[in-house]
């Protein structure tokens, strides 16, 4: 591959040494850096689209009574917000980071399967065009929740087929991305880099990729059964025809729970890269960190029932899913303790990536605590389907996964663009995000405990105060993200030149810091030697 590109470069010689000019460079991209960039730009776009939906939700919930939208549209917003954020923002962001960083970290010239790489990216804009266009069709967008539970989901109109097709496309894209990651890591590591020497980010992605391959087909199967129930008269989930709506929940959450870890394991990898760099100290217990990720991945397959306790489940199953779920706290605890030990007796400095990583450490742990509480079956009957759950999963997904992605962007952006970004603006972005994310989500714990169900457009007046606080936090958090965009655009346009190591004075480790900044279009054409 690299050879072909080198030949291309000779033909279309521009000053960056890139093979193609204009749109062709992106449409026919096979270069992992170009594809990584496209993934990241796509993800950022979806982050703002999904964020706009969240703003509509928080605006409607600002005070009791319906002021802005019809309840049906409100349900479309909650459903689409989740689908867009999960499949459009978080997952593609991690795939983008994998595309950019895995070849650089393992010393490979590119991803192993570049054309499939192109295909897996270009599926996404089509998938999301289909999904988002449902907002403009008669009957509107999916409104039964991102979990698509029948029979509610099947009450929909044409969105059923469109959303299911979009989910199939996203699944295909994810599976291809995952295959690419596995093949690259298994076959293209530089000589001498055995698996245990591999950076934690690659490790976390390797395990994530296996999770993706294991569960995306399960989701595809579940939605296909929805499709045939709706259009071809089957009764997989239709009780009147002898089907079983709860079976959908089982199949869905067999996908859904590993999916949760698909969105957090790469974040663990990122944090494990950043904390040692700015603590100037190697990661504490690197091997046990890998084992911890692997155990979490394994456990993620046997805990799905904890999403459905209130739907009725045999006593033995309730006990089993409670125990297995609680068990996840153990390897997760090991990770948090190891990160803390990494900082212990370190020499800490607080650049933007480190700030986001620290915020992750504290706030993800809060999400972990509410997770343990939710695992306790009997009280889960009180928490389930309330804002307590909403607070829990937003704590692990926003200051968890999203902050890790932002930390990664701030960590590697100078490597990608060759320019340093504005530290002042980035730190402002950090402080605003961290403050507002807590104003936004912390009161939701109170709302849930006090009895406010989730997914409602209007509420009883005793929930007014915390909802207003939460909405103010939401608007603040949403607006703060514009700064993120400004920092990235400024940095892409120019700025102080970054050195090869970028974080001079800190101790970034990994092959990506041995090549110049910006990373040349073709890197590691000759494999580096690893001692």
């Amino acid at each position, binding site marked *: 591959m690299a050879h072909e590109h080198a030949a291309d470069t000779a033909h279309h010689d521009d000053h960056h040494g890139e093979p193609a000019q204009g749109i062709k460079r992106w449409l026919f991209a096979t270069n992992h850096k170009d594809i990584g960039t496209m993934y990241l730009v796509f993800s950022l776009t979806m982050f703002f689209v999904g964020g706009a939906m969240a703003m509509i939700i928080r605006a409607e919930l600002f005070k009791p*009574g319906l*002021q802005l*939208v*019809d*309840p*049906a549209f409100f*349900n479309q917003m909650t459903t689409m917000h989740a689908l867009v954020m999960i499949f459009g923002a978080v997952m593609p962001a991690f795939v983008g980071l994998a595309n950019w960083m895995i070849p650089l970290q393992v010393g490979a010239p590119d991803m192993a399967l570049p054309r499939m790489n192109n295909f897996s990216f270009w599926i996404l804009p089509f998938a999301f065009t289909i999904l988002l266009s449902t907002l403009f069709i008669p009957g509107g967008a999916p*409104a039964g*929740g991102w979990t698509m*539970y029948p*029979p*509610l989901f099947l*009450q929909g109109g044409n969105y059923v087929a469109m959303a299911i097709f979009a989910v199939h496309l996203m699944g295909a894209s994810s599976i291809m991305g995952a295959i690419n990651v596995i093949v690259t890591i298994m076959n293209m590591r530089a000589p001498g880099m055995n698996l245990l020497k591999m950076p934690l980010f690659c490790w976390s992605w390797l395990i994530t990729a296996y999770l993706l391959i294991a569960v995306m087909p399960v989701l595809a199967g579940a939605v296909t059964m929805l499709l045939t129930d709706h259009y071809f008269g089957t009764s997989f989930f239709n*009780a*009147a025809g002898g*089907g*079983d*709506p709860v079976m959908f929940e089982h199949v869905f959450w067999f996908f859904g729970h590993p999916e949760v870890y698909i969105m957090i394991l790469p974040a663990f990898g990122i944090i494990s890269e950043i904390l040692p760099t700015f*603590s100037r*100290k190697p*990661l*504490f217990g*690197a091997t*046990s960190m890998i084992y911890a990720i692997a155990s979490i991945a394994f456990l993620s397959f046997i805990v799905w029932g904890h999403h459905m306790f*209130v739907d*009725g489940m045999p006593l033995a199953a309730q*006990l089993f899913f*409670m125990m297995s779920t609680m068990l996840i*706290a*153990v390897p997760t*605890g*090991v990770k*948090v303790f190891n990160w803390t*030990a990494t*900082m*212990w*007796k*370190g*020499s*800490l400095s607080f650049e933007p990536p480190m700030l986001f990583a*620290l915020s992750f*450490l*504290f706030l993800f742990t809060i999400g972990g605590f509410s997770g*343990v509480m939710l695992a*306790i*079956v*009997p*009280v889960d*009957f*009180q928490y*389930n*389907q309330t804002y307590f759950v909403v607070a829990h999963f937003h704590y692990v997904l926003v200051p968890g996964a999203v902050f890790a992605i932002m930390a990664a962007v701030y960590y590697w952006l100078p490597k990608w663009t060759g320019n340093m970004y504005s530290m002042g603006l980035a730190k402002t972005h950090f402080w605003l995000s961290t403050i507002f994310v807590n104003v936004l989500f912390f009161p939701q714990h*109170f709302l849930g405990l*006090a*009895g406010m*169900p989730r997914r409602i457009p*209007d*509420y*009883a007046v005793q929930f*007014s105060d915390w909802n207003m606080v939460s909405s103010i936090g939401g608007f603040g958090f949403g607006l703060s993200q514009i700064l993120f965009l400004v920092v990235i655009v400024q940095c892409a346009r120019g700025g102080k030149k970054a050195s090869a190591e970028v974080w001079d004075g800190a101790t970034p480790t990994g092959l990506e810091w041995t090549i110049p900044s910006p990373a040349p279009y073709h890197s590691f054409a000759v494999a580096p030697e690893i001692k």
Partner: protein
Amino acid sequence: MRVNRAGAGNHRDSRLLAACCAVAGLSGTAGANTSNGYNLPIGVTDMSKALYGLHMEVFWICVGIAVVVFGIMIYSLVMFRQSKGAIADTTMVHSTKVEIIWTIIPVLILVVMAVPAADIILKQEDTRNSELSIRVTGYQWKWQYQYMNAAEGVDFFSTLKQDSNFARQLDSGIDPNTVKNYLLDVDKPLVVPSGTKVRLLLTSMDVIHAWWVPDFGAKRSAIPGYVNELWFKVDPGKEGVYRGQCAALCGRDHGFMPVVVDVRTPDDFKKWVEEQKAALKQAATPLPAPAPLPVVGADASPPKTAQVLN
């Protein structure tokens, strides 16, 4: 807390509850449950109290862990700063001993939480020996209550009350704060006796709903084709009106199908049942048909077991 027929208060938790009432009363809202606005309600059943106790136990354990873990993190952030001249100890990379310790301690803590939890699950699932069974059917967007046992034949729908329904329309111009029990009031609440083990048999005629009253510590999904069971037993002396909502997204008006339970003394309940039965007899006679009376369903026979319904 709005308890219409509050008892004399001769029970253990009356002081705690009184404090909660005071908080809810001060905030001036139509608080429908015993929650103080930021925590689980203690509630009015043994189960809800047990759940509250377990919730607080787990919460304080989490707080304890948080104090230790966050304390160490904050200590590191303060003490090991490069700007304060901290030098990194790069030899500190691994310690099997501490890693074993911080694997085992969490396991022990989890066992401490799991044992009482398992105990409560056993009680929660034990629906035997109930004294009154009521079939609860979810519809988009109302509940149907069909009584069995001594109240056999009593059967009615429970829908969002008119004043809430007017106020909740888009741009209704009605301030929700002026509506009593906004979104938490129905035309006809479920009536149950206190001090009685009431079993609900939940199912649905369309999509999945969930029946929830926080003060009873009782929530369960109503699923088409399934009959889920749920029980609660309200403490004697805690008669009053308790409110909750549908807890499973069930379509456009999911937010507008409240659950309201009117708990009465067993004697009052008996009277109520007699009134209902008398009204039913009257409704059965052809003339004149009073408008708001409940329709007696043609197929009022409830399913006997958790079988798939057609």
